[in-house]
């Protein structure tokens, strides 16, 4: 009886410890995943809050040379912006990257710093009327600009 009871208690003890460790392991994985998400989410949100862009063209006269329209966008936030994933939408149509040429004026490079002006040459056909331009950064910050072509 004594030896049997001890063995039973030992089995219960080992089983309960193993179950507890499994539960703790699963919980720990979830907490780690949650922690990573919180860190990534807050980093993204803080980057978005620090990002701001402004289209600074003169809406009356948009430079146009043989169907290439030139837009100037200024980084008015305090966050560096990569120029690779800038989306340009004119009148609701996304302009493909092949039809865009992006240059950071006076500074050059690929990193668009605070105060720098990004020149975007867009090869598009626009009728002589009012148009709506939307420029969207990689992290979803955008500026809308209304202009007229003649």
């Amino acid at each position, binding site marked *: 009886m004594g030896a049997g009871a001890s063995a039973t208690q030992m089995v219960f003890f080992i089983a309960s410890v193993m179950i507890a460790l499994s539960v703790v392991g699963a919980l720990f994985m979830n907490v780690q995943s949650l922690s990573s998400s919180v860190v990534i989410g807050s980093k993204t949100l803080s980057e978005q809050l*620090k990002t701001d862009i402004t289209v600074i063209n003169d809406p009356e006269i948009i430079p146009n040379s043989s169907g290439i329209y030139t837009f100037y966008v200024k980084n008015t936030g305090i966050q560096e912006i990569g120029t690779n994933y800038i989306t340009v939408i004119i009148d609701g149509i996304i302009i493909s990257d092949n039809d865009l040429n992006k240059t950071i004026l006076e500074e050059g490079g690929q990193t668009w710093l605070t105060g720098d002006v990004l020149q975007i040459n867009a090869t598009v056909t626009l009728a002589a009327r009012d148009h709506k331009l939307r420029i969207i950064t990689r992290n979803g910050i955008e500026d809308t600009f209304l202009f007229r072509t003649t």
Partner: protein
Amino acid sequence: MGFSTSAVVVIFSASVMYMASMFYPLVDMSNKQVQEAEKISNELWKEKLNTKIAITSRVGNNLVIFNNGSTTLDSRKINVFIDGEFKSSSSYIVSPGGVWPPKTSINVDIIAPGGRVKIVTANGAAEYSVT
């Protein structure tokens, strides 16, 4: 049985304390990061809303621009458009360069002035002059 329960309680308690000690500093750091970014964002908006410039005179190549807002600007960071074309900083001379306090003016001498001039400040506020 009682010993097993105690062991499980100890394992759970120690784990919860360990996970809390891992999780809390990260959440706290993230929260501070977002709060700091919100503060910066509000500051940027405040500066933008309090920025206003006015072209008070245009004679020949010379423009006088008045800081009519309550934000101190940097005159070296203005951009100039002439007839829709962006002009590089070598195309105009700004004096005085640097700090541009509220209720003061700067002179912008444009090398090749056109009919329609747009001046843009560092935070995107703009003013036009048309002749």
